[in-house]
């Protein structure tokens, strides 16, 4: 088994070898490490992408907008880098679409890291495949394939406002149970137990 550290280093070098700058290569190294850690086929997809990249042209998406579309498939790395770099401005768009993005698995870690930067969960769909990106701590998905995914017709990104996943009633019900660990204070305990002084204002 290859360690994550080996994966990071080899991917960084391979990315430089294929022509990306050192700075971008560093990002790709970290990303593939992240995908592999989350159990997604990062290295496999990257390897296939780099094989094809030698022969096929991909479009560089630099300025990300609400709707992004191209006849030539977008490069997932350049699109991802720019999504990551611009995410502070993109968050207000609520939903962003990318039509025709190549090797979309490679785009996921950029979005996952963006979720950590803005402090919001991001819901990403690649056609019918769903991914919930949780602040770059985990990825929840209905996609378990370890195959290479060469293209996507449409990617949608939604920024999810921070809110609890439970109702106020559910909270109150649970909180009531937690109160069973508390002690009812007598008047004397109310006076002394917190360790306060004789007056409240000294």
């Amino acid at each position, binding site marked *: *088994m*290859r*360690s*994550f*550290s*080996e994966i990071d280093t080899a991917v960084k*070098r391979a990315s430089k070898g294929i022509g990306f*700058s*050192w*700075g*971008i290569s*560093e*990002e790709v190294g*970290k990303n593939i490490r992240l995908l592999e850690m989350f159990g997604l086929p990062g290295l496999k997809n990257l390897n296939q992408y780099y094989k094809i990249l030698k022969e096929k042209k991909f479009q560089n998406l*630099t*300025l990300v907008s609400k709707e992004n579309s191209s006849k030539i498939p977008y490069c997932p790395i350049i699109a991802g*880098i*720019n999504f*990551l*770099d*611009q*995410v*502070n*401005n993109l968050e207000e768009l609520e939903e962003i679409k990318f039509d025709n993005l190549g090797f979309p698995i490679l785009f996921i870690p950029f979005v996952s*890291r963006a979720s*950590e*930067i803005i402090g919001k969960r991001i819901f990403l769909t690649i056609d019918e495949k769903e991914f919930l990106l949780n602040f770059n701590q985990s990825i929840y998905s209905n996609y378990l394939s370890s195959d290479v995914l060469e293209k996507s017709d449409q990617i949608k990104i939604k920024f999810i406002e921070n809110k609890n996943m439970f109702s106020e009633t559910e909270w109150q019900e649970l909180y009531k149970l937690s109160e069973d660990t508390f002690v009812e204070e007598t008047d004397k305990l109310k006076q002394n137990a917190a360790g306060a002084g004789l007056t409240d204002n000294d």
Partner: protein
Amino acid sequence: MESKLRDPKKIMKLSKLGSFHQSKLSFLRSFLKEFKDWKYNRDLFDLDEGGFGRAVYSFSKDRRVYSLVCFANKINDHERSDRVIATKWDAAFVLYDGIPTKKDLDRLSNDVPQQEVGRMSYKELTLSRANKSVRIFEHVVESLSNGKQPDKEKLSKVGYLYRTTAVYGSGKFGLADRFRIKNREEIYGPFRLEMMLVYLVRQFTFDQVNHIAKHKNSKGAVELDDDICKNLGIGNSTGLGMAPFIVNHPALLNNWILARETALKKIREIKKIDENDSKIFIDCLKKSLKNVTSWTTDSDFQNKKIKSLISDLYKFINFIEKEFSFEEDYAFNQIYKWIEKNLRDECIEYIVSMMMEPYDYITNPLLKSMSADEDKYFTIPTNKNVSDLRNILEDNYSDILKIDFEKKESNQNFWFISKNKEEPRLADRYLDKGSELEQPLAIARDICKLYARISNQKNSLKIGKFLIENNDLRHVVRRAFIVEKFPYAEIQDNTIGSNLMPIDMLRLKLSFFGAVKFDPRSDKWLRINMFQGAPLPKNLKKFDDYWVYNSLN
């Protein structure tokens, strides 16, 4: 009185960093301090009469066990080489996480001796190999088998029976990734498991030499005297592989240097020096002279440094004994001011190390701050603007921005990764091929490029937008924002200039390891000694933190 931390622009110059010495903060000393209460055991010792076979040593506490697995192999003399291009070694070692089973040992016996070519698993933590010292190994075996102790003078010239030529960790060749073990309290300090491996290897070398001698003459052989063992360490041959590490780990480098600088600052701020503390300082200083005067090397570069160190040390001792009193307020601050004015870097940094000796209460809390989670600082804050970046560059790189990279000599060298060994190397840009594959280690040059690039950009331009057209400099944009948080993260010198001394970079790292007796074999590699004078594992419980000054050699 509040003392200031020393200026990173002075401290982070390579000539200064290349003058650092071991101290209480050094990793091999902090390793021994941490593991002194652990149970040591030799679990397996299955060598044949020639000393070839396998052995296992362990440290255990509560439910945690670390086991060193040793494989001693027969090699021909002509196959023995310290160079990284070697493919066979006298012995190979791996530190296993837990207690290895017979099946584990069989698996490891195939892979560990192959080192870089073998595959390790997440159960293995560190990996190394070592060669016998041809200068003394046979002499020791012969002496012991003849019932005599070896010639101490001969031993003192070498200082070890074996020399490691690489120690790997952190995910290399399939070893466990750091994240798997980083929450273990006993290894919070950097390189703890690498230090453990080297320390246990040292014991293996003594056991092996005793074993061979006994098989040569079962009735007449004697065991190597404990005091002699104690004064032998483990040699290490280090080449350029280590140099880029300190460039590639800026937050970690900062934490090492910051710990040292913080210790110095706090010591200078002590108003009244306790008599016992001044005694410890002077005692360690005088005892350490033995380490310096017995420091031999063929290197002119190092000999000049040793000469300057010895003459400055005598000058300093004369000052302390005749002109100075620890009765003065802020005595260590007075001392620091005096040494900075009167002595050279090699001795200044030596004395800074010595000043820490009495102060466990200052150094101990700093040990845990010497690791770093580099990934935490990886993401570039792209919502900042060009004006922020410009300020960082002007504040933190002012000396570097003065370097003229139009000059040929400023660009003389380039760092690359060798195809056959996948290790960093240095070559002449104008004589050697391959500069188009240069590694991103020319930080000073690229920072200057970045500064020029932002000079005609609007102050309000967001970094995210700036990067769209300037991703070729993304790696240094990242560094600049790291350096903003970590003042000692960056070497304040040109790492590709014609006057670069790469061994300064090695020396810096090795001083933090706790190495002594740096012996440069060229400007690109050097030999050192580790754990010379350290207590033997069986005596660790009676641990004396000043062992480093008790060496007889």
